[in-house]
């Protein structure tokens, strides 16, 4: 048997074998690892996201760090310094900064790794029940092995990929929430294979499970979330398994008391972990640019070293050989060889120009910026106690450069909470969206659960008086026409719906007295104002996105046949019978609702005669039995029934936006950020939300469908979008309106329109001219493709924001991913670079933190490059005077301490505290954000300016002291101290000029740097050190003599002032040229005033019916599954026809 299994499984690719209750089979095959070697077949269920073990930490961290070019370069320098022939500087000079960098970096890695270990342990310690010979025993996730049988209770998270064996529900159905996997919040059902259900539920479950010895052959572990192929071999028979039988790790069991499952894949084999892929390390533009800069510096350095080496060779040949002393110490080497040696010597000498501590300081500043984001109390959300969180610590400055914001809709822009706000029945509008009245007294209704945000006593009065038949009929329709399932909890009905709209409507009906109690396959029980009524359910005309409506056909308790229908307004209005009353007032109501950005549904009824029903049910069963084109035939049949409707009323549901979304979006638009909304929702819903959240103004023109296609395919688009406006689409529009357009496109169109890279480029070019872009019905993968498209076709920084697992792709692809830690699972946050609690915090994150970060980091980088290069380049000039012998200009200790001690703190303070304008002003003036988008503060031009400036400074630093000293009898060491002093002073003065926000820390840092310079000069040149190590501290006495010499001071002051004069002049020039508007920003203290964008133009009626992407539970309803009812003996697949009598 086993042999046959193996052979058959090899043919089908099913090579993964799982034996139930058979630990001794799986255990020996457990996967083990040592260092980087792995063997064994079955992974255990431990999550190991940590990287280091105590043994591997040191080698691994060193290996990782030396992969960085800069670190490796410095390692080489250190090695070179150990060669006496070329050692122009002692080895510890480079070793000191390098060690600092390595230790800090290693400590940081260690800390993050410990954090990962902690979070791993938390997951691994989650409880679950494993079947052992003693029955189900409590265990932890990490104990779960392949082949175990688990018991999962309601609301527990599934610990591994399980094969559902049976559940406590009828038919061994169970419901799972897959929010962590695909982001959809509606429930999905899973069903056990018929065979296990039948066999295992026939008696006490534990006793039956213990001897269960089924063997599962299935595919090797893979990341396909929607596909599973396997076979269950049990008792000599094999049964096919597919994804419907699987409970995936990470999903949550809902609405089901208990399920029993067989573990198929554990830990790293499970589908979700296979799927999450490796985390891409994101690099900012700045970092890549910086790397290029570093490479350029290295190349320049090598070139200069080469030139100087040539100079050395020539000097040795022409001059050196004539000076007896120099010729003698040259030894037996030829001038050329001396030049060669000096080449390496110069590389060592000039290496301080390579900003090694730049990277570590850069990182430090990033980390502090991230902390500042987390500390911001204005981005802290009280309700779920979530502060903002920066999960990636290297992207801060890109927050100040975002050009494209790609946002998810559901849960990001909207709260994903639909609220019944208004309705219109028989031409009367009930409810008021603006007024805040006290909630209704619903104590008369024993089924009321609260939560109704509707307060119109007139409606309640009218219902209780029962004097308006249309009102009663309207609520009967709401209570009957849906596919909601009810569940009883604490004596109150709770509803599970595939569509949040339906849930909102049914709940509203419940609160107002029309309580949907329960359903069976063919009946609905409703309590109407306390009277329990049974309706016979004849047919469910299910929703589809094409039909945009759904209906139920019921037999009322008094014997009549009624069709209740609800759907989008356009659809319903055209199916009304002629002379239907209240049509005009209803349309007015629709417009009124649309103005308030409410989502509307029309509710209608039709009385059906017995004859019509007989005839139609015949047609229906015919259509249902059809083998081909069944869907279209069914639609046609449905169409025949849904006509001659009588309008009952209109519901208005608020798809509540998250707080501050419209203000945030309008603010970001002013800041020049292009906002794209990518949603899986339908076009109508998306457009509706687009208007509501001010993504589009009421008079914005929508470019969609054919129009868009023409615009994109017209050959002139490529040249200029503006040219088109005369000829093609824009002929009617005036110049002022050209930006008043928004692109609306759905997933299929999008795929078609961006088939080729060229077309994609056009699409992005067009979109850049428009206000915004709405992409509807896009899949998670497509979201990522859109991000990729934007990234490829525009130079701007993209930011993706979303809250669900379906946004993970997009979040990972974008330059910056933001996750909202909302109601849905944490998948988005786990993969995001930044986590926020509210969409509106984005405004502060970008306009305040992003802008500040960008400015700070730009200032920091400019200054850092300036101070390191200007100090190191002095050696080049000195070479001209010392025979190209690579004699350092400075004392070696100074070279080591200059970047680490004397000039590092002030620039760190600048990078941490600098504010050009206050947070309030930043929010008030979003247009200031554009500076970052255009990369105005750090670009190749600025960089060249900075480098030229540092060359100038180095020239001044060298030649003024030399000029002074050449006519005096001062020695080399005095010159060195003078130049050192000037260099430290210049660097400090430059940072003083750059700093515009003087906190006490800045002042302290500047003072500290200067004090440390003098103190360490005195200490390093002190007699104690000299007498202990005469050959190392040769500068003994130099600084004492130099500091006592007024000429040295006068020289240093003159040099410093001259060195920073250009910087000061440029600042003065910009001050003189710019009108003094900064002053106003500084002094503006008034709170941020949000400009109201609520000027309503021509209202557009927006009606929609939002369903989840799936088809809903309609089919399941009519199949009678999952409904505790008369025990239906349904086996296998039952055609709809049979269930519909």
């Amino acid at each position, binding site marked *: 048997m086993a042999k046959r299994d193996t052979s058959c499984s090899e043919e089908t690719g099913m090579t993964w074998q799982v034996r139930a209750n058979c630990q001794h089979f799986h255990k020996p095959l457990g996967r083990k690892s040592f260092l980087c070697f792995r063997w064994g077949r079955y992974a255990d269920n431990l999550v190991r996201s940590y990287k280091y073990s105590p043994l591997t930490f040191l080698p691994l961290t060193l290996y990782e760090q030396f992969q960085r070019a800069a670190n490796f370069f410095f390692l080489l320098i250190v090695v070179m310094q150990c060669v006496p022939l070329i050692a122009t500087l002692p080895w510890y000079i480079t070793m000191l900064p390098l060690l600092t960098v390595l230790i800090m970096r290693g400590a940081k890695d260690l800390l993050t790794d410990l954090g990962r270990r902690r979070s791993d342990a938390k997951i691994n310690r989650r409880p679950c029940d494993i079947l052992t010979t003693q029955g189900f025993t409590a265990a932890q996730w990490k104990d779960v092995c392949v082949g175990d049988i688990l018991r999962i209770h309601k609301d527990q998270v599934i610990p591994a990929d399980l094969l559902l064996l049976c559940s406590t529900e009828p038919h061994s159905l169970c419901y799972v929430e897959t929010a962590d996997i695909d982001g959809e919040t509606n429930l999905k059902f899973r069903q056990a294979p018929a065979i296990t259900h039948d066999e295992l539920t026939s008696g006490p479950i534990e006793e039956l499970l213990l001897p269960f010895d089924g063997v599962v052959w299935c595919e090797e572990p893979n990341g396909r979330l929607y596909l599973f192929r396997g076979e269950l071999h049990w008792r000599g028979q094999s049964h096919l398994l597919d994804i419907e039988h699987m409970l995936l790790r990470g999903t949550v069991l809902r609405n089901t008391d208990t399920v029993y499952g067989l573990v198929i894949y554990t830990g790293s084999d499970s589908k979700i972990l296979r799927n999450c892929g490796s985390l891409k390390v994101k690099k900012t533009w700045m970092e890549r640019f910086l790397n290029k800069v570093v490479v350029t510096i290295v190349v320049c350095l090598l070139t200069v070293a080469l030139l100087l080496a040539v100079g050395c060779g020539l000097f040795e040949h022409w001059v050196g050989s004539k000076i007896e002393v120099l010729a003698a110490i040259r030894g037996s080497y030829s001038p050329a060889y001396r030049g060669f040696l000096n080449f390496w010597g110069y590389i060592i000498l000039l290496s301080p120009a390579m900003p090694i501590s730049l990277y570590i300081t850069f990182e430090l500043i990033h980390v502090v910026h991230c902390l500042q984001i987390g500390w911001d109390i204005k981005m802290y959300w009280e309700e779920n106690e979530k502060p903002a969180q920066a999960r990636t610590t290297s992207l801060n400055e890109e927050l100040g450069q975002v050009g494209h914001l790609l946002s998810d809709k559901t849960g990001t822009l909207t709260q994903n909470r639909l609220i019944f706000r208004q309705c219109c029945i028989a031409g009367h509008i009930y409810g008021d969206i603006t007024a805040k009245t006290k909630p209704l007294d619903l104590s008369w209704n024993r089924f009321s659960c609260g939560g109704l945000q509707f307060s119109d006593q007139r409606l309640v009065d009218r219902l209780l008086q029962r004097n308006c038949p249309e009102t009663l009929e309207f609520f009967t329709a709401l209570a009957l026409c849906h596919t909601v399932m009810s569940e009883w909890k604490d004596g109150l009905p709770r509803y599970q719906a595939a569509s949040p709209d339906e849930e909102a409507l049914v709940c509203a009906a419940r609160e107002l007295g029309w309580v949907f109690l329960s359903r069976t396959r063919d009946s609905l029980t409703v309590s109407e104002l306390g009277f329990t009524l049974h309706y016979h359910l004849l047919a469910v005309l299910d929703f589809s996105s094409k039909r945009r409506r759904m209906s139920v056909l019921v037999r009322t308790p008094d014997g009549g046949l009624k069709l209740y229908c609800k759907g989008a307004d356009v659809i319903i209005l055209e199916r009304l019978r002629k002379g239907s009353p209240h049509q005009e007032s209803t349309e007015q109501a629709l417009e009124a609702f649309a103005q308030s950005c409410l989502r509307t549904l029309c509710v209608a009824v039709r009385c059906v005669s017995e004859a019509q029903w007989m005839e139609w049910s015949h047609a229906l069963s015919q259509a249902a039995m059809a083998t081909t084109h069944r869907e279209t035939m069914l639609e046609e049949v449905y169409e025949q029934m849904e006509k001659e409707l009588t309008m009952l009323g209109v519901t208005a549901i608020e798809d509540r936006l998250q707080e501050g979304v419209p203000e945030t979006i309008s603010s970001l638009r002013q800041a020049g950020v292009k906002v794209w909304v990518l949603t899986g929702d339908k076009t109508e819903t998306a457009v509706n939300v687009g208007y509501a959240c001010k993504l589009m103004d009421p008079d914005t023109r929508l470019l969609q469908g054919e129009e868009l296609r023409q615009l994109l395919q017209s050959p002139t688009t490529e040249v200029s979008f503006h040219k088109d406006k005369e000829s093609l689409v824009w002929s009617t529009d005036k110049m002022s309106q050209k930006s008043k357009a928004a692109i609306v496109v759905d997933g299929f169109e999008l795929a078609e329109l961006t088939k080729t890279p060229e077309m994609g480029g056009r699409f992005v070019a067009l979109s850049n001219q428009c206000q915004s872009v709405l992409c509807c019905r896009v899949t998670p993968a497509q979201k990522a493709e859109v991000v990729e498209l934007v990234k490829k076709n525009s130079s701007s920084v993209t930011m993706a924001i979303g809250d669900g697992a379906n946004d993970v792709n997009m979040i990972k692809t974008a330059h910056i991913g933001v996750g909202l830690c909302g109601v849905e699972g944490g998948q988005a946050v786990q993969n995001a670079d930044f986590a926020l609690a509210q969409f509106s915090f984005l405004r502060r994150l970008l306009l305040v933190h992003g802008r500040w970060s960008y400015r700070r980091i730009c200032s920091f980088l400019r200054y850092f490059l300036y101070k390191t290069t200007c100090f190191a380049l002095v050696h080049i000039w000195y070479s001209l005077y010392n025979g190209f012998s690579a004699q350092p200009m400075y004392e070696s200790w100074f070279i080591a301490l200059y970047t680490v001690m004397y000039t590092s703190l002030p620039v760190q303070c600048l990078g941490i505290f600098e504010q050009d304008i206050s947070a309030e002003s930043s929010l008030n003036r979003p247009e200031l954000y554009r500076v970052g988008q255009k990369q*105005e503060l750090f670009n190749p031009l600025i960089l060249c300016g900075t480098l030229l400036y540092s060359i100038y400074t180095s020239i001044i630093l060298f030649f003024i002291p030399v000029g*002074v000293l050449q006519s005096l009898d001062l020695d080399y060491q005095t010159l060195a101290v003078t130049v050192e002093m000037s260099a430290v002073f210049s660097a400090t003065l430059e940072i003083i000029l750059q700093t515009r926000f003087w906190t006490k820390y800045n002042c302290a840092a500047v003072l500290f740097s200067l004090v440390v310079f003098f103190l360490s000069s005195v200490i390093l040149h002190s007699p104690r050190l000299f007498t202990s190590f005469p050959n190392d501290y040769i500068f003994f006495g130099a600084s004492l003599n130099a500091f006592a010499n007024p000429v040295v001071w006068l020289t240093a002051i*003159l040099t410093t002032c001259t060195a920073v004069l250009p910087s*000061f002049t440029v600042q003065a020039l910009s001050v003189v040229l710019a009108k003094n508007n900064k002053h106003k920003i500084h002094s503006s203290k008034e709170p941020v005033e949000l400009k109201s964008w609520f000027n309503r133009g021509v209202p557009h009626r927006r009606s929609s019916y939002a369903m989840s992407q799936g088809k809903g539970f309609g089919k399941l309803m009519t199949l009678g599954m999952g409904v505790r009812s008369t025990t239906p003996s349904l086996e296998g697949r039952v055609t709809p026809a049979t269930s519909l009598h």
Partner: protein
Amino acid sequence: MMASSYTAKEEDGHHSGSAAAGGPGSSKSKKPDNTAFKQQRLPAWQPILTAGTVLPAFFVIGLIFIPIGIGLFVTSNNIREFEIDYTGVDTNSPCNRCSQTYSWNISCTCSVPFSLEQPFESNVFMYYGLSNFYQNHRRYVKSRDDSQLNGDKSSLTNPSKECEPYRISEKKPIAPCGAIANSLFNDTLELYYIYPNGSRTLIPLVKKGIAWWTDKHVKFRNPPGNNDNLTITFQDTTKPVNWHKPVYELDPNDPDNNGFINEDFIVWMRTAALPTFRKLYRIIQKNKDNMTPTLPRGNYSLEIAYNYPVRSFDGRKRMILSTISWMGGKNPFLGIAYITVGSVCFFLGVVLLIIHHKYGNRNNNADIPN
């Protein structure tokens, strides 16, 4: 000088209050602290640059620098300095014959006459200057053993490797070792005043007090032992190759100026920064009575014991006489540089002022970098 707005955003005092209000559970709350530091509301001084504050800065810098420069320049000009090149490149110069011989050890004397047009008051410093002598060459600078010079006994007999090839000679360690010591400037200069009647008198030259105090007393020390008899202390060593006499005979009359602590030696060992340099040689102290100038105007004769060869590398040897002030010797560069930079600042201020008046008010929207 600069307008400022001190935005003292006071720290919120609610920090402790809010934590207390949260109740016992709030200790775990993730709510960030409402402190000025964490909320980036630190009180800070924000200098606001305006044309009204920046432009005066240029003039102020100019107005400070130019007087300083003038002061320095005047001071420098008041210093008398006399320089004479005695290398003997010219065939008819007195030292031409001596300069021909390329040797360290053959002594040759020559005398160079010169006349001072103006008297030199107060103390006069006498320097020797060398040109094209790369005393700042890296391998040259390194070629010494400070440990040995500091009197370390073991370094005396076993000098540092850095001293190669001047480390061991005749199988004995060289003291002082290294190229710097080996190339010690060994010309002897003497100065005679020639009275109008033709007779001449030797001007007394003080040879102590020319080195740094720290060098003389700490950095350079003779090896421990009998201070009066350095010969024994240095008995296991040999003299540098180019030297006429061993180190313990540099100034045999004055034990305080002999051996490693000989001041001429110390001055030489403090290497120069540039290939053309001057070093202090002697001090001519002012007359006790203070009535007559130290060096009256008239004719002088510089007697040179010409030992130091420089012709091979086109070097020059000079003798410089200079009075001194608080800023050392004559140094016109510093004053001129101050005046120049001050003028540039002043000029920039004027240019910016013009720009400000012409364009300042129109160009409103230029964003201010930094």
